[in-house]
């Protein structure tokens, strides 16, 4: 408790969020998380179903989106796992978007894996690896990206930070959970989340999101989605182990020529201090509907409070100036003119920055 680093409370790397949340350093279990390896996701949606079943989440519409096989749409109050389907072909591919993957890949891939120079690729240089290779009958190659999205259980969780009731809390596993008997439906967590995960359920009013199956974790079981995933795309375990494992997997994919494989949300240095649920993606995060560089909003909160304080003082000063510059109704004149002179320095209400 006493070793809490005040600087890491709002942003930055924080190795042990559960301890910083007040759990006994040695008494709480390891931080756990999800590693979602989208390269082996087959889009079966078993995770969505298992999640709904286990957590008894109500049905929230059986509509068709008409955009892809994704008829779930997005994460929300009644969708705690969401499988995204992205259909990509060389025709709709943006020009040159992979060009930049080269230097980065070259720098991070291990020795002996010059991933940019993929042998056997007939693609012209500017297209990067995997550029258009027409099929036998002239069709362009198509690919599907599928990814099971979930609450990220951020190291610095904005939803938890802004919750005014204490309904959202950090569990001993380092995850973030809503206490439904406390939540009063203020809805503040909804716009605070940089990933658009948590949401209020319309008929209910309260906010809901993934609990990483808190009930199952307590019993030593893995969450329902990870249990149900038939390809091990969703992997559950101690976060440190998962991170090691994910790095190895990226190396492996790059060695195999998948130059665009990259991890998302695993870096403790990122804007949310690293996600408890992170991903291996095969394209830019925004293609999957994920923010490219999410930042916990409370990182800037000290500055916001400072500006609010300065603004409050300038309100006082401004109103004082307004009174001092106006002739008193029933007062002596001398003091007013003196005050008038004193109250007119420079830029009125001091707009700071």
């Amino acid at each position, binding site marked *: 408790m006493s070793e809490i680093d005040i600087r890491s409370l709002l942003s930055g790397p924080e190795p042990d969020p559960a301890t910083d949340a007040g759990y006994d350093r040695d008494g709480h279990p390891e931080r756990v998380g999800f590693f979602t390896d989208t390269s082996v996701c087959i889009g079966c949606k078993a995770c969505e179903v298992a999640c709904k079943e286990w957590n008894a989440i109500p049905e929230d519409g059986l509509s068709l989106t008409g955009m892809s096989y994704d008829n779930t749409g997005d994460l*929300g109050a009644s969708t705690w796992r969401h499988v995204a389907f992205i*259909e*990509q072909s060389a025709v709709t591919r*943006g020009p*040159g*978007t*992979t060009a*930049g993957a080269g230097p*980065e890949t070259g*720098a*991070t891939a*291990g020795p002996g894996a010059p991933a940019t120079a993929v042998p056997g690729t007939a693609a012209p240089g500017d297209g990067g*690896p*995997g550029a258009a290779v027409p099929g036998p009958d002239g069709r362009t190659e198509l*690919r599907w990206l599928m990814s099971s999205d979930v609450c990220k259980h951020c190291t610095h969780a904005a939803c938890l930070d802004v919750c*005014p009731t204490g*309904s959202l809390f950090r569990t001993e596993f380092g995850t973030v959970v809503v206490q439904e008997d406390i*939540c*009063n439906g203020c*809805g*503040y967590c*909804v716009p*605070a*989340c*940089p990933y*658009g*995960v948590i*949401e209020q359920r319309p008929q209910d*009013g*309260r906010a809901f999101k993934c609990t990483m199956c808190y009930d199952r974790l307590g019993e030593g079981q893995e969450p329902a989605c990870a249990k149900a995933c038939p390809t*091990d795309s969703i992997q*559950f*375990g*101690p976060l440190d*182990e998962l991170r090691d494992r994910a790095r190895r997997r990226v190396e492996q994919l790059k060695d*195999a*020529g*998948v*130059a*665009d*494989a*990259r*991890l*998302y949300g695993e870096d403790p240095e990122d804007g949310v201090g690293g996600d408890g649920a992170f991903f291996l993606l095969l394209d830019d995060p*925004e*293609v999957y*509907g994920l*923010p*490219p560089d999410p930042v916990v909003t409370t990182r*800037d909160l000290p500055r*916001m409070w400072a500006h609010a*304080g300065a*603004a409050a003082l*300038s*309100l006082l000063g*401004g*109103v004082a100036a*307004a009174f001092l510059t106006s002739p008193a109704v029933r007062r002596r004149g001398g003091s007013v003119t003196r005050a008038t002179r004193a109250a007119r320095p420079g830029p*009125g209400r001091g*707009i700071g920055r």
Partner: protein
Amino acid sequence: MTGSDVTRSGTRGERPGHEAAPGSLQPGGTSPGAGGNGNGGKRRGKRGKRGEELMVPRAEFQSYYGRPVIKAPGWSSVDIAGYFYTGGLAGAGSVLAAGAQATGRPATARALKISSAAAIGVSTAALIHDLGRPGRFANMLRVIKPTSPMSMGSWLLSAYGPAAGAAAVLETTGWFPRLNTLATGAAATLGPAVASYTAVLAADTAVPAWHEAHRELPYLFVASATAAASGMALATAPVRENASARHAALLAAACEAAVVRLKRRRLGMIAETYRQGKAGRLMRAAELLTAGGALGAALLGRRYRGAAVASGLALLAGSACTRFGVFHAGIASAEDPKYTVVPQRERLEQRYREQAEQREAEHAGDGEVTDGDRPAGGGATAA
């Protein structure tokens, strides 16, 4: 279905073959970019007419079928923008009331105390009405949480509300003048915080138009609050007492105009959300009403009661338009993935560029770079 687990001693029960690299991902498969350009990267019709003013020349971006990345707040605009507005009116009104009382403007003081008490009542009612579970409002006072502006605001309201209410009641009844002075002073001390904390409440979210304006919003909110309160004073107080209200209105209008411009510059492409659509109309109306009200009060409000009342009402309406404009700009910025993705992508690219330069410098230095320090997260260093 699977018994795969990650444990301290390694992985157990993996599926055979799950370490394979799917063939479709290997060279010859296709690669990135499509997600947005075909579907998500579509431009909205509403931008366009001011396209040439964009700070970001090429708003090409990728998204998941054009769906928003973040969730817009589920708040009702009447409730929450109304709560911002009435909170500001009340808070700044209490300061003006105390000033009026101290400088011998009893009619102004009385009117503003009553308006502040009424406004904070409306503000609190709007906040409670917007809750998903209004019956659980008291849960707001379960914890004190500096990281939650709404928690701090609830505590602030619970201290300020009774003070403002007491000041109004004691003023109208004439009972306990000393207690009245005390309540007036307490309300005037807390009032500025009531007026400014709502800006932090809005800014402490992932909503681009609010968060990225977190430096300017508090000043905008207190300026708008002062404009509203001085409008209330102009509308309700006799002409001979309104000199200070006129000055406050001028000052507030000038500051608001300045802050709006500063914010627009700072926001870059996100500033569009304050110029377009409903938010744009409201912000323009706010500018006209506030400037018109302040000028009208300054030029005519000293002589004509009618002009003072009209100016006061214009200021009140202008402040309301500002709050609703800010609210709708936030909603618009949350609903379009562009405002989330483009600034973040630029930030990321900038960081990659800096890192690449740093690496190059290191390379030039000793020729040996420790690879693997950098996590492999950045496959997308688009040039």
